[in-house]
């Protein structure tokens, strides 16, 4: 799930070379959108369980709302806050995304309140016992959805015209422009896709942990960001791999050292990767001076 978030983030970076701080709070808003979608369907609390078509329908609706809503939000951010600044070198864009991030964060904080909200869990608590490990239907569904989304993204990027255009722009926007690619459109598409993925990740988060709050952008964001950097910023497969690795590190770190140091560990990894191996595992864009 960090992988999905990391992918969206890395997509935007690949094309714009812009670190988008706001991405993680788009994620947070996505989870609220999903929550409201589910509540609109009448689901709340842990008690109601749906099965079969009802379940699929409810989930599909929630995903649609979360993904579309987040996608639109991402595009809006790009249009309003980032497009006027395109082309200005340096950190101006990133600083603006910090500002946008703050705005989103506080809108939710002031609007929806500081406490965590309970996420409805419409999935039936079916479990399977596979050689000692207990696997929940919930987990299976979530993994399935995540993989499906990633596969869909891969297909899109490699097969469709827009996908190819995106990859081209990521490699060399000047050349792409000269080849007739509408770079503006590509950027909008990247933002939409990336944000929509964040929305999906957010809904998955809410369904899995059964809660959401205004803070989730921060912690998930840190891990997703490190995952993206670790995998090589700008590289989509890298983000996927990075996401898995970070998840592992988080678990192992908690087991072996202590949970309280997890954030420090992850930040340290971030710093170390950036300083010593800035291209990460798969990346091509070098963050050093040219």
């Amino acid at each position, binding site marked *: 799930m960090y992988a999905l978030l990391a992918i969206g983030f890395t997509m935007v970076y690949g094309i714009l070379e*812009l*670190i988008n701080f706001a991405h993680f709070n788009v994620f947070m808003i996505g989870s609220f959108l999903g929550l409201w979608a589910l509540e609109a369907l009448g689901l709340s609390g842990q008690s109601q369980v749906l099965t079969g078509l009802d379940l699929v329908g409810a989930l599909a609706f929630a995903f649609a709302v979360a993904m579309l809503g987040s996608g639109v939000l991402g595009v809006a951010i790009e249009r309003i*806050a980032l497009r*006027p*600044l395109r082309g200005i070198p*340096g*950190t*101006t864009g*990133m*600083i*603006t995304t*910090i*500002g*946008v*991030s*703050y*705005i*989103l*964060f*506080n*809108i939710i*904080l*002031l609007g929806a309140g500081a406490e965590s909200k309970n996420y409805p869990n419409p999935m039936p608590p079916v479990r399977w016992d596979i050689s000692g490990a207990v696997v929940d239907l919930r987990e299976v569904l979530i993994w399935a959805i995540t993989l499906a989304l990633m596969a869909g993204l891969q297909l899109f990027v490699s097969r469709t015209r827009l996908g190819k255009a995106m990859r081209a722009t990521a490699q060399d926007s000047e050349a792409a422009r000269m080849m007739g690619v509408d770079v503006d459109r590509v950027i909008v598409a990247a933002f939409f896709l990336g944000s929509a993925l964040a929305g999906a990740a957010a809904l998955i988060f809410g369904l899995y942990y059964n809660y959401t709050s205004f803070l989730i952008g921060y912690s998930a964001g840190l891990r997703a*960001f490190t995952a993206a*950097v670790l995998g090589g910023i700008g590289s989509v497969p890298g983000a996927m791999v990075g996401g898995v690795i970070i998840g592992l590190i988080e678990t192992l770190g908690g087991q072996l050292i202590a949970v*309280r*140091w997890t*954030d*420090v560990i992850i*930040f*340290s990894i*971030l*710093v170390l990767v*950036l*300083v010593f191996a*800035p291209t990460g595992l798969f990346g091509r864009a070098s*963050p*050093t*001076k040219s």
Partner: protein
Amino acid sequence: MAPGKRVLPSLGDATTARLRTLGVSLLLATAVLFPPLINNDGNVDAAANALSFAALALGLNIVVGFAGLLDLGYAAFFAIGAYTYGALASWQLHPAWSDFWAPFAFLDLVARVRGVGGDVVHFQVSFWLMMPLAAAIAAFFGILFGAPTLRLKGDYLAIVTLGFGEIVPIVARNSPSLTNGAQGLNGVIPPQIFGYSFGVSATPYYYVGLTLVVFLMFASQRFKFSRVGRAWMAIREDEIAAAAMGVNRVKFKLLAFAIGASFAGATGTLYVAKLQTATPEMFMFPVSVMLLVMIVFGGMGNVWGVVVGALILQILQSWFLQDLSGWINALGRLVDVEWLQHVQLASSIELIFGLILVFMMLYRRQGLIPASRRVAALTTEEQTALPTRGGFDNLQGLGALDDSRTGPLLEIKNLTVRFGGLVALHSVSLSMPAHSVLAVIGPNGSGKSTLFNAVTGLVAANEGSIRFAGEEIAGRSPHVVLERGIARTFQNLRLFPNLTVLENVLIGMHARLHAGAVKALLRLPRTQREEHEARERAMEILAVFGNRLIPRVDHVVSSLSYANRRRCEIARALASRPKLLLLDEPTAGMNPAETLELADQIKSLNRRGLSIVLIEHKLDVVVNLAERVIVLDHGEKIAEGTPAEVRQNEEVIRAYLGRSAAFA
């Protein structure tokens, strides 16, 4: 035209200066009289907090505003300063007493106290001692945290600093033996002066804060208008050009981090002494962001702007918004509108910060009080004046050029430069005697600029040797190369866009001046003299170009015409008193008249003893100026000789024009 409290005597309008001094004195008087006038300890406390944040903003301004290093974890240094004082002046640490501590007790730094199970050491280091000490410790951490970021681009640098900024409070929280963790330090000792303890009244802290802010502003201004400040701004504007002009990037970046951190360290001491406790939550990311918003809002790089920005935002948060909420609530009661009565604006301060940040970035990036001053436009006379040429004959600024050397000035052997799989230069060799002019020509992409980059150290040489005046310089840092006496201009112009003509040229002199940070701060007469002479030399060099640049000497270079910018870049290179000047297409974009003029000026330079290597496409310039020409194609030297020889060389003609013949 230097704003600030201390006006340089040789510059500036006297009346404006006097008005400024008057204004500042008035402000200072108000600030000093503030506590007794207001007579409300709560408000004085809020003001003291505002001053603390202004001091922090000043520190961040050095790192971000001056040096252009986006530090998102600045609050870490604040924490370090605070906890250092807290640990050494509270009941937090109490190791068992031993004789080791006796001399410290004698100095009254610690006390021997009865504890459970034996005597223990109670740290009570004086606040006045701790403030500079904490500043120094913070500076050390500034270097520590800054070091990994030296090679990183802007946003990655920001992320790494963000990382450190997060790690520090987490470590503080998880080290309860040192910091009492989340519960916060207990019993930090308030400062004492001449036996009088500050206690809990906010007023003495307010005055200390005021003094600190005034001192830090003073220091910032001093730095800004000194060699150190110029070096920082050069790094901010264009790091590569800065290095090529002799600025030791590593040293100055670390210096910026260190000095910036030290401001925070000192402020941390004050803040914690006033609060008498410190918790990790006080130093987390939102504090760093708030400081960033303050300097963006107030004007990055402008000392007054930053302070004003900090004070406005802090007062907004802790004072004005609460009152505004109260008025709105009262209004709500008046008109009986429910939600108005419960509005609490103070909680939306972060939302306001976000909005300010976005708004400022979109519409007014320079902030409230921009760093670059607007200069009076040229008078009509000046604008329509016929350009005159200067002359090189009176030019003192170039300095003596060593005549006694025998042997080639520049000797390159088998130089090979590879970029991944691409071979940009392949086994190129050349030898150039002193005081000559060498032209390098060749089709686009033949490696000419790469040759310059290799010589000046901007690009690493994979194989081969480059000897300058007998010394091997291949692989040395660009600023070292400049120090040795090689200066250059760039094909695509790398001036420092937001700095003035004069500042650009002064940065060229960076390697020949000596004032470091301490000297910049103290500004002893010797340093003042150095600066004065530097300015005079700069003006002389600019006079070479007649009246083209002199009237525009305080204009920001981005407002100059293209040709003037080229001239400015040359002037900047000349300012470093080079022995060898590398000019990369100096006449590109100039019309024939300008080209002719510049060619003449280059010739004069050479006559004065300067050795020159010239990359040029305009072959008439080459023929006019160069004694020898080398031709590069696809990274290899394909011909060498006098202009006449080269002109008729078959290979050369083929390289440029394919199989057709003539070439004029």
